[in-house]
């Protein structure tokens, strides 16, 4: 493109710092012994260790998927570290006991764990490498019977709930990375909203990878009991490193009859440098099961990671259940993303909506992959899919892989797709009205993503928009 847009400079990834803390890590390598060690560190009950071991054996028999439209060097699973925790973090510690160095890290990331200073209306669980360092607003939530804590704590304090729902949406045998996660998962968040309760706060988990050559394998489980409502947000960052780091998470959502779960993600893992060196491999399985009259809504803004492989999905199990997927995925430099969703219609009169906005810049490759499946008994099922791609520059790519499988002839499906290119003319038009190139691009992109941004909780919509501006800087040329 022309020089007017070329002049933009790359802004540094502002979350790329490393916190100097002493860590307790299990040596690199993966074996049954590793799985046992992790489980022992976390003082887990026997049933959970057994589940992990089953998953591990299953994983050994599986092969890494090669169907995603992404390219990367083979991962050496024996070179990874599977557990790393700051020494200062004690199990079940209170917020007052958190190491000031870790508090400072979160302050630097813009996340205050100080309850007084915290944005009102939001509770935070902060995960640092393999452990949770603290969860805010627990007392307030407890008044409403809401459980919001680290996964590790839930295993110790609420084993019956964990045992009942763990793996009920994403079985350990589901796929290669889900099996790996099930074997070695470290920490994550656990949420339980009791019957008929509307969670009074936004719940949010902030994931931070700090240690080098360490994978993060978090596991999140959200259960909304009958008639409950919760809005949950996750954010993620990692230091800049020249080696790739693996992040293989699993998120399971159970939305029982008449419940509603809204899950939003702002993913900003380190994406690698402008030549594609380093960055996070983000291989994630996210799925929810919606029971009768219930609703699960995924909203994601994916700007980070060297490689993204994730398909937040909804199993529309119950009659009249609703599944939604709103996504903005941005790739710049040499980032690659293969992302989308699956909507599995099982119940009658189930309804799903998919709005996907892919933005490709630099040498980035962006693939939308989505499946809409209507089973034989799902009469009256409806799906609306809209899948838009925007290209910035002429070295990038946008790809669309929709899969539609219908086994019931009463289903109604709509699929719309478009591809556009940010033009010199659009930018010039904005400049002629007094906006500079950066402002012009962020405005045009924000307009393109509007339908998705309006689904984000208020507090985060602006942040997401700014994030998008930053990750596209230097994208044109």
């Amino acid at each position, binding site marked *: 493109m*022309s*020089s*007017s847009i070329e002049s933009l400079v790359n802004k540094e990834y502002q979350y790329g710092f490393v916190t100097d803390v002493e860590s307790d890590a299990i040596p690199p390598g993966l074996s049954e012994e590793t799985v046992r060690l992790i489980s022992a560190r976390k003082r887990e009950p026997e049933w959970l260790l057994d589940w992990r071991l089953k998953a591990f054996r299953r994983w050994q028999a599986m092969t890494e998927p090669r169907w995603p439209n992404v390219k990367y060097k083979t991962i050496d699973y024996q070179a990874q570290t599977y557990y790393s925790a700051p020494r200062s973090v004690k199990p079940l510690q209170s917020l007052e006991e958190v190491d000031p160095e870790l508090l400072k890290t979160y302050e630097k990331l813009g996340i205050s764990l100080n309850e007084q200073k915290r944005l009102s209306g939001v509770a935070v669980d902060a995960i640092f490498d393999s452990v949770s360092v603290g969860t805010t607003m627990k007392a307030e939530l407890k008044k409403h019977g809401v459980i919001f804590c680290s996964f590790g704590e839930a295993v110790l304090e609420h084993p019956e709930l964990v045992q009942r729902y763990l793996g009920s949406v994403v079985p350990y045998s589901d796929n290669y990375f889900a099996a790996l996660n099930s074997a070695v998962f470290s920490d994550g968040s656990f949420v339980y909203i009791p019957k008929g309760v509307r969670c009074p706060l936004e719940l949010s988990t902030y994931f931070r990878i700090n240690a080098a050559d360490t994978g993060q394998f978090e596991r999140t489980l959200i259960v909304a009991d009958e008639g409950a409502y919760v809005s949950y947000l996750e954010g993620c960052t990692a230091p800049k490193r020249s080696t790739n780091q693996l992040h293989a998470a699993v998120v399971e959502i159970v939305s029982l009859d008449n419940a509603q779960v809204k899950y939003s993600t702002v993913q900003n893992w380190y994406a690698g440098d402008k030549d594609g060196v380093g960055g996070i491999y983000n291989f994630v399985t996210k799925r929810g099961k919606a029971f009768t009259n219930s609703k699960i809504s995924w909203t994601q803004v994916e700007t980070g990671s060297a490689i993204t492989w994730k398909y937040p999905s909804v199993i529309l199990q119950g009659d009249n259940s609703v599944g939604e997927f709103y996504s903005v995925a941005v790739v710049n430099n040499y980032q690659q993303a293969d992302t989308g969703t699956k909507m599995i219609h099982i119940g009658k009169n189930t309804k799903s909506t998919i709005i996907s906005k892919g933005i490709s810049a630099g040498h980035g490759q962006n693939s939308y992959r989505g499946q809409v499946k209507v089973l034989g008994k799902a009469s009256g099922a409806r799906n609306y899919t809209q899948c838009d791609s925007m290209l910035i520059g002429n070295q990038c790519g946008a790809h669309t892989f929709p899969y539609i499988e219908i086994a019931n002839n009463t289903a109604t499906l709509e699929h719309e797709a478009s591809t556009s290119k940010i*033009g*010199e*003319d*659009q930018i*010039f*038009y*904005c*400049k*002629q*009205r*007094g*906006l*500079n*190139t950066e*402002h012009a691009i962020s*405005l*045009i992109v*924000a*307009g*393109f*993503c*509007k*339908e998705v941004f309006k689904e984000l909780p208020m507090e985060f919509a602006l942040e997401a928009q700014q994030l998008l501006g930053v990750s596209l800087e230097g994208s044109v040329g």
Partner: protein
Amino acid sequence: MLKIENLTANVGDKQILKGISLSVNPGEVHAIMGPNGSGKSTLAQVIAGHPGYEVTGGTVTYEGQDLLDMDAEVRAQQGIFLAFQYPVEIPGVSNAYFLRAAYNEIRKARGEEEVDPMEFLDVMTERLKIVEMGDDMLQRSVNFGFSGGEKKRNEIFQMAVLEPKLAILDETDSGLDIDALRIVAEGVNKLKRPDRSTIVVTHYQRLLNYIVPDFVHVLAQGRIVRSGGKDLALELEERGYDWLLETAGASA
């Protein structure tokens, strides 16, 4: 206000402007006329700073400063406004939001405070009357799904809000029916002030029935082949451009 001297400009290897000289003083209305492909729109785009054109020679001074040295957004902030021949669509960005961003950039450049949305709403509502548009306009995406006439009116609306010192209307009359033409022209006239100048680029004389120019320049093959008063436009209406082209050809 604007002084163009011996300006030459290319698109790729092709020379479009072949030595244009033009002076515009405060309060004046200049019409640039000429046949298709004569370089009228190129001149407008070059003044506005479109990156697709390469200036190969000459000078342009705007309020005593070297205009060619300024980025397009700086020119806009300094009061130059181009009403586009083909206004660009920006889906998902409301007119109100877009205009406020522009308005604030211009204010910032002048060292003034930004306006808040409520204050700005009053400014917009008042200016909408100039182009006879309803306020539903404000929430619609910039030019997205607009009819040709709406797009042109929106350009004049933006001009009314941004209050430029030098407005360039690039074929604003093309594609307008007679009513829209009248609204657009009246809008331009209402914005006329002794310290503001206007350059009207047009193929036809009819717009000049409404916006009466002080000077008319005829552009042909990248050069101004004749300048005169408003009567020149009428003469062109009657005789067409050919007789001037022949003269230009002979002198070239």
